[in-house]
């Protein structure tokens, strides 16, 4: 018994040196093939993947707050709305450069998250969920009612595409490439932060706030920073949506967005680095897969989501873990 235990732990340490599970490698190849195919074929699926990337950026950010830190927020769409409307207003009304509009909007969203988060994050559990939910509803109402600023239900159209100076990204495939680059950048940051002093503090808070506080971690401070990071990602995704689609309205950042992003987070694997991005791709493609079933599309989509959550409660990215544990066992026996 005892020798058995040391065997496995040694094998796992050995494995940590750098091989990934077969399933993870297989998954990576599948995603690469998928993007390649869509890229060659073009058309509607390019748009689907564009939106998947935008949602992916949003989810990678939300994962900081909900995954790493373990807090509930039902109102992150508010910050996506700030990004989207900021970009629309700065670019359409004031002819700003897209990059500048995106960055300034992120700044506004960050400050808004700080102001809103400071009092709200004293709440916990269901209370925090309700407060953040209200935040999303309030933002939605503002975007509908404050017509002089937001143009109400009509929304903004004619938002220019992304670009720097004279160079603009008009081609749909190029847009997708840009979005992939931004998502990868977002994932890179998430990866760097997760295994650091900062990331460990967030993850400690997610399972034991007293334990974290007893080790000198300022719990409220770290929650607030995670909330702000999530807001920055959300704002960037809102701005990118505005540039890529060229049109925004209150509905874009409504409740639908909350539901969709939650699905993505849980399907992909909350609290993991890659999970949010994988979830965004899968949850965006599934409805397209069932398009041929006509009126059964929604039912099929819901059924598959349910099955995924029942049989993979830790999300699709947990599949990589299965592959990983197989590798050391074999090498330990052999």
């Amino acid at each position, binding site marked *: 018994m005892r020798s058995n235990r040391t065997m496995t732990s040694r094998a796992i340490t050995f494995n940590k040196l750098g091989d990934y599970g077969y399933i993870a490698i297989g998954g990576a190849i599948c995603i690469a093939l998928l993007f390649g195919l869509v890229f060659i074929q073009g058309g509607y699926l390019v748009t689907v993947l564009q939106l998947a990337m935008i949602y992916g950026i949003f989810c990678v950010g939300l994962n900081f707050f909900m995954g790493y830190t373990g807090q509930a927020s039902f109102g992150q769409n508010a910050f996506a709305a700030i990004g989207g409307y900021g970009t629309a207003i700065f670019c359409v009304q004031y002819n700003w450069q897209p990059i500048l509009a995106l960055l300034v909007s992120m700044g506004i969203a960050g400050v808004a998250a700080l102001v809103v988060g400071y009092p709200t994050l004293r709440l916990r559990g269901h209370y925090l969920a309700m407060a953040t939910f209200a935040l999303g509803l309030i933002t939605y109402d503002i975007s509908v009612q404050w017509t002089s600023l937001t143009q109400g239900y009509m929304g903004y159209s004619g938002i220019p595409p992304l670009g720097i100076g004279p160079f603009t990204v008009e081609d749909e495939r190029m847009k997708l490439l840009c979005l992939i680059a931004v998502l990868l950048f977002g994932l890179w940051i998430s990866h*760097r932060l997760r295994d*650091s002093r900062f990331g*460990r503090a967030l993850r400690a808070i997610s*399972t034991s706030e*007293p334990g974290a506080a*007893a*080790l000198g971690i300022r719990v409220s401070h770290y929650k607030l920073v995670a909330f702000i990071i999530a807001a920055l990602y959300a704002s960037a995704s809102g701005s990118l949506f505005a540039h890529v689609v060229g049109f925004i309205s209150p509905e874009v950042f409504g409740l639908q967005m909350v539901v969709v992003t939650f699905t993505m987070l849980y399907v992909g694997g909350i609290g993991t680095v890659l999970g949010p991005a994988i979830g965004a791709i899968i949850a965006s493609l599934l409805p397209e897969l069932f398009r041929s079933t006509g009126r059964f599309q929604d039912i099929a989509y819901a059924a598959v989501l349910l099955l995924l959550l029942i049989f993979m409660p830790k999300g699709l990215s947990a599949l990589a873990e299965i592959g990983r544990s197989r590798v050391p066992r074999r090498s330990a026996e052999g």
Partner: protein
Amino acid sequence: MALLKVRDLTKRFDGLQANSEINLEIPEGSLFGVIGPNGAGKTTFFNMISGFLQPTAGTIEFAGTDITNMRQDKIAAMGLVRTFQLVQLFKGMSVAENVEVGFHLATRGGVAAAVARLAWFRRQEADVHAKARELLDFVGLADQAEQDAELLPYGQQRLLEVARALAARPRLLLLDEPAAGLNSHETDALAKIIQQLNAQGITVLLIEHDVALVTRIAQRIAVLDFGCKITEGTPDEIKRHPDVIAAYLGTDEAAHA
């Protein structure tokens, strides 16, 4: 010199007097025990010292600074680090990562440092990894370093909590019933570890239900009963004290109270 000075510490919960006017001085470098029967107010006392409960009255002074009503993380930053009676491990993190979290106070750097990963930050991370392994080695959990912390047997979870607290470089380590739920073999291992870290210069305040453990390793012991400190002395004095025997075994008076 006293590292921790507690003056007239009192806590009332809606009419229940959980702690009344407790006075205590813990000398630097000592291994100090607090014992008392269940419900004597040990954990309440402990929670007030570590900032997890606000006292109704009284003051707490640590290393010459008044820490009454100070936030928990600030108290920890001053070098007063606690463990919990109900272990508060970070689930979903490995055994080694749990200890690495403990180095929070001993390290620096936030979001920008983690993204940039300059040389000093990489060095610090490598240092944290290495030192976490050393601490796990010290408590005898080196072989389990990569394992998920939740999967450890209960006795080892307690040892992990001690290792994690040590990472925070405590001047005073508060151990809240560390032997609860341990078998005699595990308790012996724990006793040895506590004595070793005390020998390294860490002052230890040990709150325990298990009288045998405390009388064996503590240099000085205070006894709580019904929220009051009934006596204080060396282990030998405590073992022979009639009030202590009464509190633990019960007298007619205590049984009626």
